[in-house]
């Protein structure tokens, strides 16, 4: 545990000195929080929304909105779309941090003295992984709370607002979010073990991660019925996926190859 803690703190000291990482970690959640608030602000006050009737909306919306009808359903639809955007934050932030922290150790040649210590591969990867997952999850939660608070202030229909705090979204943010970030970090670790440029590592990880995220988002936005049971199944599936991915990440992190590939 001491070693893992030391790795996390070291990672933060190092990686947040990198401007690109700092930008990704602070600017992305900020954008994803502020932008929808603007949209809500303008849409909420608009007359066009008030005149929308249930007949104007596609049939899936009825399923999505339940009691909330007409313009408010449209509003709720927009609100939920933005929450889904939040699910990008826990994936992208740890991917960026992990890519920079592993490839960074290769380019600065710090990996050799690190691997010469009695630290185990699992300790290194857990430390580096958590160094990405912790800030990612925290920013997601903070962003969500800011967004929810903003929505509460701007949207007058309490039925719409209370839907933001229903168990469905709570579970999505507080359960699925962290699990998604574990997935992002495991994939980034695997890719980073094989490439020598952090940006390439990040991009390749993105290619792998985004379709998976897209799939979940697609399912959640009304293609199928999203309810608590579904979210729980999703969380369980993600948990299994995370365990499998982390296992592979440890296997891929071959000390000898990583050290001697880099000349």
């Amino acid at each position, binding site marked *: 545990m001491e070693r893992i803690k030391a790795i996390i703190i070291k990672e933060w000291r190092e990686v947040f*000195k990198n401007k690109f990482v700092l930008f990704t970690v602070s600017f992305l959640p900020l954008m994803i929080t502020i932008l929808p608030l603007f949209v809500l602000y303008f849409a909420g006050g608009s007359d066009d929304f008030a005149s929308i009737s249930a007949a104007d909306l596609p049939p899936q919306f009825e399923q999505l909105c339940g009691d909330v009808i007409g313009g408010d359903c449209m509003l709720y639809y927009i609100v939920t779309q933005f929450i889904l955007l939040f699910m990008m934050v826990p994936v992208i932030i740890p991917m960026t941090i992990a890519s920079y922290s592993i490839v960074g150790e290769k380019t600065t040649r710090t990996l*050799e*003295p690190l691997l010469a*210590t009695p630290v185990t591969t699992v300790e290194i990867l857990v430390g580096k992984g958590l160094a990405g997952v912790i800030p990612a999850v925290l920013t997601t939660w903070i962003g969500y709370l800011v967004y929810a608070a903003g929505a509460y202030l701007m949207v007058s229909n309490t039925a719409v607002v209370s839907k933001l705090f229903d168990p469905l979204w709570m579970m999505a943010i507080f359960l699925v979010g962290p699990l998604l970030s574990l997935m992002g970090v495991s994939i980034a670790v695997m890719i980073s073990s094989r490439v020598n440029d952090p940006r390439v590592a990040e991009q390749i990880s993105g290619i792998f991660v985004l379709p998976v995220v897209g799939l979940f988002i697609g399912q959640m936005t009304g293609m199928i019925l999203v309810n608590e049971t579904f979210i729980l199944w999703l969380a369980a599936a993600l948990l299994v996926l995370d365990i499998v991915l982390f296992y592979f990440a440890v296997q891929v992190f071959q000390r000898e190859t990583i050290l001697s590939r880099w000349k």
Partner: protein
Amino acid sequence: MINNSPIIVTESLTKRFGEITAVNQLTLSVQRGEVFGLLGPNGAGKTTTVRMLAALLIPSGGTAQVAGFEIGEDDQDIRRKIGLLPESPGLYDSLSAEQNLAFFGSMYGVENIAEQIQKYLELLGLWNRRYEPVGTFSKGMRQKLAIARALLHEPEVLFLDEPTSGLDPQASKLVREFIEDLRGEGRTIILTTHNLEEADRLCDRVAVISGHLLALDAPGELRRKIFGRKVVFHLQEANQALVGTLEKFPFVSEVQAVDNKILAAVENPEEQNPELIRALVNGGAELQFVGELRRRLEDVYLELMGAVEDNNHGKN
């Protein structure tokens, strides 16, 4: 300090990278407390050897024990017992000197970490700079910090891979003096270098390698084995008659007159020189002084490398 219990033993240790055989059937042993040099040109396999012994690379063949543990089997135990100064210092630039050491200290599980950090930063003259980011350090300072890192957990065996290469003369001198100080503490040091003077000065024994082992002995013995010991007789005037006088002795070879000197290879100068001096004086020589021609390790090295080259040409 040196006693006769080997702390490192290798047996036909071999490492191949694809087609290249970087280390070829290396068999040697290092005694506890010894400063042991691995000497060889670039690409001789010094770093690869050190990396195998530090449990970083898996050998392609052969075996090795370090501090009583088998490489490839007890790697974690070995890592606890050894300290490594890699070829490039590998420090975290945005962390301070102290943070760098504290991090590695916790990787090694050093208990009295604050004291250890202070001890080595003071010894290496970096204590006043401890809060500064390593990115601002000179090459020499980085090297010293990396040496401090290798010593934090008081390893039994210290591997120093080219500790002075790339440093300016002043920094090299400091590092060399520090290594000399370390010798006194009974720690085993494996030092790789292509600097002959360094090997000559610091090492108890030197292994000359170029893929495989070319020679292994104390620096002085290497010189003697390869060139024998040469005695120089300084005379008022050298002549062929005096050369002839020396050539009669069975233990003398390669006698030659150069200017007013006579050079002769003598098997055991301490015992045999008095006899030779008597013969020269009786032969009418005006003897001014007698000395030994000191070969440099460099000559030994060039001779060995020359042999390697000849061999290679022979094969082609």
